[in-house]
């Protein structure tokens, strides 16, 4: 660690992983409710479990992005963080608001929560992913502003590297587009139209800048490749992301009211959205191939490569299969959507957060060249268990979705009803649930890897000598 203040990232990362664990437990509960319809009813209705699952996802990713920023921005800027104290205070504010909101979902009926938090004053609740009470949303804005102020001041004081500038642009975009969550008119069509300005412009817009910046940072660190090369790639990737993704939002405007030209615009522009994700794969592999030194933290490199590949599969390939309007007409809002949502969120955003954690946590714990080989071995196992099981979940949901379309959507006469179709899909939902259990075991292994023995003296000596050797040929991490 170059600067003392980088260590404020640590609680953010730890808390993110705790929420991630909660997210998966609720996912497994919902997976069972898909099979045994009345499982845990009426104590935990499906909609409550779903809010907890998706909101925990968003909140832990935000914790991850914040931790990543607190870690990498000072190092890039070459100065201490503007205010470590503010970062620590905001951690507790955000954590408390998050926990209180989740407890609100679990402990009182949603309508009661809406009443208690005076949703009628500024109604923003009850829309997918934006279920948080209005007061929580305001809290999120406050935390985001304090965070961006802190990061922004740090950037201003120090070197304005491309990574820092791209990252902060993405973070500001994240905060700005979140403001659309406060716009909820009586007209459902307008509500939906601008709902996507939060959801789509996040995951297929500004979050891609954050993703690219974090990935570029880790790649510089673990490969030592010249910054100029990495920065050029980063610019091209995010340029393609914005060029395709902004108008690509049209792929959500096919069937919710907007006019017909969106069928064309959405199809054409979103069809090129996979390109930046494909470039990320080329970028990551090329940088690792051209690496100038062998970093002791090999698992961090694996996470970086894995993020690029899985993001391409989830967002690029699984996004493409249902993004053209004539296909989407049949797959819209089916299990295909769920398949894509899972692989894309996991492959791009969950994995990039685990990537920076895997790189930064050992350093914050004084293990400059990564964890002990035993710990890395367990983490590698966890990496593969999570990736393979998530692919399993995705394939199962894809089969379920295709079958659903065949039974319920394609037939002009004699189509099965929604509920009867779901009954037929139960065997596939079992497969999904089994892969979900494997995913959970992979996550447990991942968490366990943090507790596997520290660096032994012998290892440390060996590492020190390799470190010296690496420095002699210039490890590249100092520029």
């Amino acid at each position, binding site marked *: 660690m170059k600067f003392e203040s980088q260590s404020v990232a640590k609680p953010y990362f730890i808390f993110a992983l705790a929420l991630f664990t909660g997210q998966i437990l609720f996912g497994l509960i919902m997976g069972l*409710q898909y099979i045994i*319809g*009345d499982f845990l*009813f*009426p104590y935990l*209705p*499906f*909609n*409550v479990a779903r809010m907890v699952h998706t909101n925990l996802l968003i909140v832990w990713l935000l914790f991850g992005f914040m931790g990543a920023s607190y870690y990498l921005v000072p190092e890039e800027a070459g100065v201490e963080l503007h205010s470590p104290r503010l970062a620590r205070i905001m951690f507790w504010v955000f954590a408390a608001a998050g926990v209180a909101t989740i407890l609100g979902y679990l402990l009182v009926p*949603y*309508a009661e929560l809406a009443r208690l938090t005076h*949703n009628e004053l500024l*109604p923003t*609740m*009850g*829309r*997918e992913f934006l*279920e948080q009470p209005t007061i929580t949303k305001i809290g999120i804005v406050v935390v985001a502003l304090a965070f961006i102020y802190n990061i922004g001041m740090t950037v201003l004081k120090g070197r304005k590297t*491309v990574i820092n500038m791209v990252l902060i642009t993405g973070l500001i975009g994240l905060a700005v587009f979140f403001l659309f969550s406060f716009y909820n008119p*009586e*007209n*459902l*069509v*307008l509500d*939906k*139209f601008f709902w996507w300005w939060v959801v789509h412009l996040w995951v297929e817009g500004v979050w891609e800048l954050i993703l690219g910046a974090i990935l570029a940072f880790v790649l510089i660190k673990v490969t030592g490749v010249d910054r*100029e090369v990495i*920065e*050029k*790639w980063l*610019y*091209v990737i*995010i*340029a393609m992301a*914005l*060029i395709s993704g*902004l*108008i690509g939002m049209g792929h*959500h*405007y*096919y*069937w*919710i*009211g*907007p*006019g017909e030209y969106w069928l064309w615009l959405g199809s054409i522009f979103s069809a090129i959205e996979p390109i930046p994700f494909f470039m990320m794969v080329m970028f990551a592999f090329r940088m690792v191939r051209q690496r100038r030194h062998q970093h002791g933290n090999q698992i961090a490199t694996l996470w970086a490569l894995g993020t690029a590949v899985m993001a391409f599969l989830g967002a690029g390939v699984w996004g493409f299969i249902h993004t053209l309007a004539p296909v989407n*007409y049949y797959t*819209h*809002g*089916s*299990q295909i959507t*769920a398949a894509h949502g899972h692989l894309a969120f996991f492959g791009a955003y969950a994995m990039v957060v685990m990537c920076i954690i895997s790189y930064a946590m050992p350093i914050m714990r004084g293990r400059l060249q990564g964890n002990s080989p035993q710990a890395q071995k367990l983490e590698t196992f966890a990496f593969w268990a999570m990736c393979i099981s998530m692919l399993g979940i995705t394939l199962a949901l894809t089969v379920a979705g295709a079958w659903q379309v065949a039974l319920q*959507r394609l*037939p002009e006469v004699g*189509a099965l*009803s*929604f*509920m009867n*179709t*779901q009954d037929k899909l139960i065997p596939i939902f079992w497969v999904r649930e089994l892969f979900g259990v494997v995913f959970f075991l992979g996550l447990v292994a991942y968490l366990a890897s943090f507790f596997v023995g520290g660096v032994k003296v012998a290892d440390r000596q060996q590492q020190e000598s390799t470190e010296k050797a690496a420095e002699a040929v210039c490890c590249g991490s100092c520029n």
Partner: protein
Amino acid sequence: MAEMFTKGMARNIYYGGGVFFFLLLVGLTFDTLRELPQRDHRENITESVARGKALWEENNCIGCHSLMGEGAYFAPELANVFDRYGQGSEENFHQFMQAWMAMQPMPTEGRRKMPQFHLSQQQVADLTDFLIWTSRVNDNDWPPNREG
């Protein structure tokens, strides 16, 4: 990447492309906002429809159902539920909805459950009006058939 393609060029594509396509998006948004009144029939958003939307949100119906294909995939699509159960008559559909909401949760063991929301008759009527209005939005003929 080739040496001739410099970082400065890449940066310009990023700034130029980002700004251009964002402005294009804003322009298209204005055009869509201009066109929408003919497609969403907002003149039919009565107070009852508006109250129905608030009830839809405050009971988190979207946590199980989809509406115009968006939301959750645990329970049936509801943007066309009027077409499915109303037999073309608003009155029939109102009767159906009162009965349906009162009946929940259904006792069949192992079946997916819809909670009892304890809504008043007026509230159910508002929700029903909201769903009827929604079913009449011009959504380019989605879904493909009445099963949603």
